[in-house]
């Protein structure tokens, strides 16, 4: 490493950061590809089907085949569409989904940028994801994608508030905005000290809001691929696929955040011998997989919400619930029982 350092001189920090970015984004994109595979397999088995099993052993090459197919297809730009913004839409949807990973810790040491305000950073970056959708709908120059974009953007903006309040609860309990410190603050003898228990309403609100935030079933009024005309109706080929890459990257991101903030991140469920032998990284991966499985399970189980009920749930149920629990946590912290909420 020192050889490269001397070779590159002042350009070394830039190159080294790029290498680290590739080390995160590469596996992430692979994970995105195989989450789509897992989704089709899991939902297949839940519906007593087999799912993809033709391409490669057990259908394991299916996501690769899908990717190649989509890349070969022509990107059709509708007449009268705003060409630049039309192509900028998918990029703006994808960029925040990847940029947020800069501050996500995978173990106490393994993090690209261990900044002081990483939770705020994630909230700020993920709040930009809505631009991709709004732009895609508007630039298509077609009324149905535009209506779809309005629906989707209103939903995302609404649930962001409830999500933000749920995160306020987490940072009150951890007394830090740094994700590494938030996980370390959950340390205890068993999984009862993780924040899912003292912040249980927040945990539920966060989990459900994040499903709504990433436009997945049962909140997928933005783009039920097969039956609802959504914001990406005019997109084709890879431009269309990028929206799905962004959706699945966001899915993994919110699963990771749920694991970090409510399920103890890399902490083992019991702080005793056989559990502590396994490296924390694998515990984190296991928790992320669990939350991802929940998302797939939701999709296979629940019927789609009606749009006015989605709005009602976000504004009239989740926001009051989080506000009340914030007050409750704040008041309890002043009592002798406050240690339960730290």
């Amino acid at each position: 490493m020192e050889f490269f350092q001397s070779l590159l001189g002042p350009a070394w920090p830039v190159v080294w950061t790029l290498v680290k970015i590739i080390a995160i984004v590469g596996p992430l994109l692979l994970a995105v590809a195989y989450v789509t595979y897992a989704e089709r397999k899991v939902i297949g088995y839940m519906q007593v089907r087999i799912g993809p099993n033709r391409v490669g052993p057990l259908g394991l090459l299916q996501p690769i085949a899908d990717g190649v197919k989509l890349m070969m297809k022509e990107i059709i730009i509708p007449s009268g569409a705003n060409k630049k913004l039309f192509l900028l839409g998918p990029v703006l949807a994808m960029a925040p989904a990847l940029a947020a990973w800069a501050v996500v810790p995978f173990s106490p040491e393994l993090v690209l940028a261990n900044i002081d305000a990483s939770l705020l950073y994630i909230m700020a970056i993920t709040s930009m994801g809505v631009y991709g959708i709004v732009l895609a709908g508007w630039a298509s120059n077609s009324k149905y994608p535009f209506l779809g974009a309005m629906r989707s953007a209103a939903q995302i903006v609404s649930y962001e508030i409830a999500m933000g309040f749920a995160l306020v609860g987490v940072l009150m309990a951890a007394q830090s905005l740094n994700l590494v410190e938030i996980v370390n603050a959950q340390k205890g003898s068993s999984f009862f000290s993780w924040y899912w228990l003292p912040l249980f309403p927040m945990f539920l609100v966060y989990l459900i809001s994040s499903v709504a935030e990433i436009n997945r079933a049962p909140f997928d009024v933005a783009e039920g691929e097969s039956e609802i005309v959504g914001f990406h109706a005019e997109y084709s080929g890879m431009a269309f696929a990028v929206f799905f890459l962004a959706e699945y990257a966001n899915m993994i991101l919110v699963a990771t955040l749920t694991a970090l903030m409510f399920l103890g991140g890399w902490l083992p469920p019991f702080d005793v011998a056989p559990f502590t032998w396994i490296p924390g990284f694998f515990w984190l991966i296991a928790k992320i997989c669990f939350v991802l499985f929940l998302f797939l399970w939701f999709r296979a189980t629940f019927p789609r919400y009606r749009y006015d009920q989605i709005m009602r749930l976000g504004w009239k149920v989740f926001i009051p619930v989080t506000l009340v629990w914030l007050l409750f946590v704040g008041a309890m912290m002043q009592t002798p029982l406050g240690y339960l909420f730290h």
Partner: protein
Amino acid sequence: MNAQTLIFYFFATILLFAAARVVTARNPVHSALFLVLAFFTAAALWIMLQAEFLAIVLVLVYVGAVMVLFLFVVMMLDINYDTLREGFWDNLPFALLVAVLMAAEMAVVVAGRNFWANGSGVSPVIHGPEYSNIKELGRLIYTEYVYPFEIASVILLVAIVAAIALTLRRRKDTKYQDSAQQIAVRRNDRLRIIPVAADNKLRQKHEAVEQTEKQS
């Protein structure tokens, strides 16, 4: 020129370009998007000044919320680009006057002795990596500036309530659904199961078949 200055000029160039395009772009949607870019690069500049909380909140509030609503409104409007340019020359003298006034005010502030840190004898404090901008800000807001902070938030709340009260009108002839009532519905409120004669016959038949199967 070190790397930091280089990065500063990089962001400053983008910021100035984006800010200029906000007023010169023909399409209002483009203008709004250039404003987003301007906010974003301004946040980057603030981070370089170690004001990371302000920078992140700028992105969170202005880019993530305010500009999304702006875009919503601008996209909903059916704008005729030709009429948009009408009256440009009529309004130009007044606009120029306002611009000159603003430039003069800024010049007064920037030329003033107290604006420059080295002019007033106070040098900017450079903090180490352990310093938490957010903790300090939080402490100040909730101790020294707690009353101004609370008063400002109450004023904002009043503004929200007032805006809703002014625009909300309930028409008598609109029909709307009460979601709470809809959700509270149970099966027995809507559904009644009637025993059908054919059903009974079928059941008897099944029972007879089962009987014969058991016997054999």
